[in-house]
């Protein structure tokens, strides 16, 4: 799974960096409002009156309106928005969602290798799209309809403050959206759990017993479009599992004895919430040099996507992850860390440069290293722990504490060491990964090796994911209501949609603007399309024409990027892939999202207040 590097920044550090951005956002909105309000008021009245109206508005906001907010009025406006939404039959969206689920079997690939990912991805994305579309629609049309029908006259002639009108809409539509979201989440959960639940029976005739060991192998019946091979140990007794079915379609089953028969338990391992403990990644080059000592770091194997860097096999090229704050207690291994395992999970890319056994795995090794560089190397490094990797496979390496060894420099013998006493210093540990096979490469990014802390709750992870959708819902509602304070319904909806699209594609807009994406800006790429010129060659339009086109593109892209930077980064709120791939959504991520949502909430609340209060409602 690809993880944005910014996710690794702890919340405190992120907040310290983000404060500047938030202040800029608030200032830009404030200045924009002041200039626009002044310009419009000056046109409609006189510049002198514009100063009086805009200045008076500011003073009134601070001295009177915000301090005199009334919870009762806000609740009244909220109730009105809820009643309006419900009586406009928005709950039909939920019915539509249920109908989609009922017929999901028609268009979902039931033979998919990972049905859990498919089902989760489907329900989460469907909930998101339906709710955001609904939020966009109701929030953008409500206020303009009130102005058109003049019902707003009976509101603004009461002692209702402009921000209470704004808040009422946002809270009301937010509440309706929340109710729908909760309903959808509940139905989605039931759909996924029931959809994945299935039973197999043992094909008794398929069992082949090894009389010496008492181990039996065979396969199960085909149910839900798949079957499992399994392994049973008939020597095991008791109520516990006596065997295990191999992983198929992303899950497994435990096998139990029931009298003389064997039965399979429910599917396991498909709905997970792995809690990864990530480390910081750096590289040693093929000669074992750190980057700060002139090393070249990780390698590029020529792929355009530079998310991962590569290490070369059979060299000192090493990927080093440094973990902080580790303790024996984290892994239920007792205070001394004498027993248990260190569960490492790896998701390495394999890049082969030689032919041979193309389906064979590529060998690598892990070394657990004491980060204290002043120690002699022999004391720092554990003995290599081998593993094998293949393309696109996530695999786990469980390092048994009792198996961790270090070579004694004087005797050259391998001696047992204690992980937490001998290698972990102040909670810090380095994990080095090397590729053993000559002319083969491993590719990795920071998120591709992690220590698995005890499993989190899938249900809690699912709720966190829906919390992310909820925050997107709030953001869309905020923008919808904000735009509706000065635009008519359809234009407000298009403006909100534009913000969502720009928020989603702000990364791409940034790439085009900086020139990282080939082909130039919109005008240049349009000309390239028409004249059939490739994206990577220089534009052949003559020097002057090219300069003019690129200057126009530059202006357009700079403007676009500025606006896109003001829009929320919607992809960061989308945590569907984390839930679908079974990764716990970290608290830091949620805190960042909540902070971002709150900042937008306050900025748009103030902006909405100023727009409504400086607007002639009856004009």
């Amino acid at each position, binding site marked *: 799974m690809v993880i944005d590097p910014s996710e690794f920044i702890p919340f405190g550090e992120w907040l310290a960096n983000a404060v500047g951005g938030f202040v800029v956002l608030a200032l830009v909105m404030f200045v924009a409002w002041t200039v626009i309000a002044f310009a419009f008021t000056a046109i409609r009245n006189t510049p002198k009156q514009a100063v009086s109206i805009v200045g008076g508005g500011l003073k*009134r906001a601070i001295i009177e309106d915000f301090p005199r907010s009334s919870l009762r009025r806000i609740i009244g406006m909220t109730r009105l928005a809820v009643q309006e939404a419900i009586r406009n039959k928005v709950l039909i969206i939920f019915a539509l969602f249920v109908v989609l689920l009922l017929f999901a079997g028609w268009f979902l690939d039931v033979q998919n290798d990972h049905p859990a990912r498919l089902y989760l991805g489907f329900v989460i994305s469907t909930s998101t799209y339906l709710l955001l579309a609904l939020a966009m629609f109701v929030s953008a049309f409500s206020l303009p309809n009130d102005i058109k029908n*003049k019902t707003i*006259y009976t509101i603004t002639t009461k*002692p*209702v403050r402009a921000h209470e009108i704004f808040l009422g809409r946002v809270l009301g539509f937010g509440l309706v959206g929340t109710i729908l979201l909760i309903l959808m989440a509940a139905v989605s959960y039931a759909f996924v759990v029931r959809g994945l639940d299935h039973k197999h029976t043992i094909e008794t005739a398929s069992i082949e017993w090894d009389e010496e060991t008492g181990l039996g192998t065979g396969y199960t019946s085909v149910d839900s479009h798949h079957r499992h091979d399994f392994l049973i140990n008939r020597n095991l007794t008791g109520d516990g599992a006596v065997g295990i079915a191999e992983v198929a379609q992303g899950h497994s089953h435990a096998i139990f004895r029931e009298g003389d028969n064997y039965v399979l338990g429910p599917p396991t391992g498909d709905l997970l919430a792995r809690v990864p403990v990530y480390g910081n990644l750096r590289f040693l080059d093929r000669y074992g040099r750190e980057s700060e000592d002139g090393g070249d770091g990780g390698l590029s194997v020529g792929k355009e996507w530079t998310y991962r860097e590569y290490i070369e096999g059979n060299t000192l090229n090493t990927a080093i992850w440094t973990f902080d704050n580790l303790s024996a207690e984290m892994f239920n291994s007792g205070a001394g860390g004498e027993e248990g395992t260190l569960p490492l999970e790896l998701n390495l890319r394999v890049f082969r440069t030689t032919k041979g056994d193309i389906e064979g795995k590529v060998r690598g090794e892990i070394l657990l290293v004491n980060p204290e560089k002043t120690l002699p190397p022999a004391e720092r490094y554990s003995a290599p722990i081998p593993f094998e990797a293949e393309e696109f496979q996530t695999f786990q390496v469980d390092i048994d504490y009792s198996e961790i060894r270090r070579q004694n420099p004087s005797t050259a013998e391998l001696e047992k060491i204690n992980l937490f006493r001998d290698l972990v210093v102040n909670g810090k540990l380095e994990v080095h990964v090397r590729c053993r096979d000559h002319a083969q490469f491993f590719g990795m990014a920071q998120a591709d090796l992690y220590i698995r802390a005890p499993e989190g709750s899938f249900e809690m992870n699912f709720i966190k994911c829906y919390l992310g959708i909820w925050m997107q819902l709030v953001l869309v509602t905020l923008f919808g209501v904000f735009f509706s304070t000065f635009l008519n319904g359809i234009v407000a909806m298009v403006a909100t949609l534009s913000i969502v699209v720009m928020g989603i594609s702000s990364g791409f807009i940034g790439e085009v603007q900086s020139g990282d994406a080939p082909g130039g800006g919109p005008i240049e790429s349009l000309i390239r399309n028409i004249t059939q010129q490739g994206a990577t060659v220089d534009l052949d339009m003559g020097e002057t024409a090219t300069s003019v086109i690129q200057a126009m593109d530059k202006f357009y892209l700079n403007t676009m990027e500025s606006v896109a930077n003001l829009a929320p980064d919607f992809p960061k709120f989308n945590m569907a892939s984390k839930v679908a791939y079974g990764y716990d959504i970290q608290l830091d991520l949620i805190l960042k999202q909540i902070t971002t949502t709150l900042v937008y909430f306050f900025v748009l609340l103030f902006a909405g207040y100023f727009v409504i209060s400086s607007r002639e409602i*009856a004009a």
Partner: protein
Amino acid sequence: MSKSVDDKKDVIIETRNLSKVYKDFWGRPKVNALESLDLEVRRGEIFGLLGPNGSGKSTTIKLILGLLFPTSGQALVFDKDASDVSKNERIGYLPEESYLYKFLNAEETLDFYGRLFNMSAGRRKQRVRDLIKLIDIEWAKRRQLKEYSKGMTRRIGLAQALINDPELIVLDEPTTGLDPIGTREMKDLIVRLRDQGKTILMCSHLLADVQDVCDRIAILHQGELKEMGAVENLLSVRDITQIQAKGLSDDAQQQIRKIIEGDQADLVSMENPTTTLEDLFLSIVRDSKARPGYNRKRERDQDGSSEAETASAEASDKS
């Protein structure tokens, strides 16, 4: 001094040189909707705004309520600028049409507007009950407003305007859509509200209604104030004396102009006759161009008196 302060306290609405010019998107003047309006509405009176369509009545009301911003001049309500939201705590407003949320029922509507006045739940409940009884709509209080007739909607509109027991009630065409009985009840209610000490500003096309209930009126035409004053003064025909007597003999009738008192008859009345508001209104509209606005007339009168004063001063100097 104290009289002046009391006068000031008694002025509920005051407009000073209030003007409104509607402009197009580019700021070019489109319509002069209101021109230098000066008026005062005093505590406890029913003040009527009259005028044909496009005369500036609705614009005046919207400026007073803060729904529009003046191009120049100022509107003060309870001595606060019209854009000050806090003034609304003492105002009730019945718009021209019933601009209400059709998906709410009568109780929900009044409860909603009660919340906007920050009224407690108990007070809201009591007030909703009283008002529903007042407008006689108990039998339909749980029906959505979209099922209401125009008259019923008008009544619920009035109830929402009274939810906060306001000191100033602004009524825009209050009898529109009401049947004759409803109209009579509305007029009685307006007078009753005035008698309770409330101030009422209303505008209406129905001249008879205005004549029936208003204490003072202002007549607007093409954004200009044409006449303002007490209804009986405006309707009085000053150049005609009307004598009404009872039990006169034929001879006496012959000599009546000479010897009314000598005939020992009872003189019932001797006064100027009044015209109807309709006649006055139509004559103002008809003679609009020839007839100067109220402010201009006042200025002219002031100029005339100051000229007379100057002349008399000059004369006294000479003597």
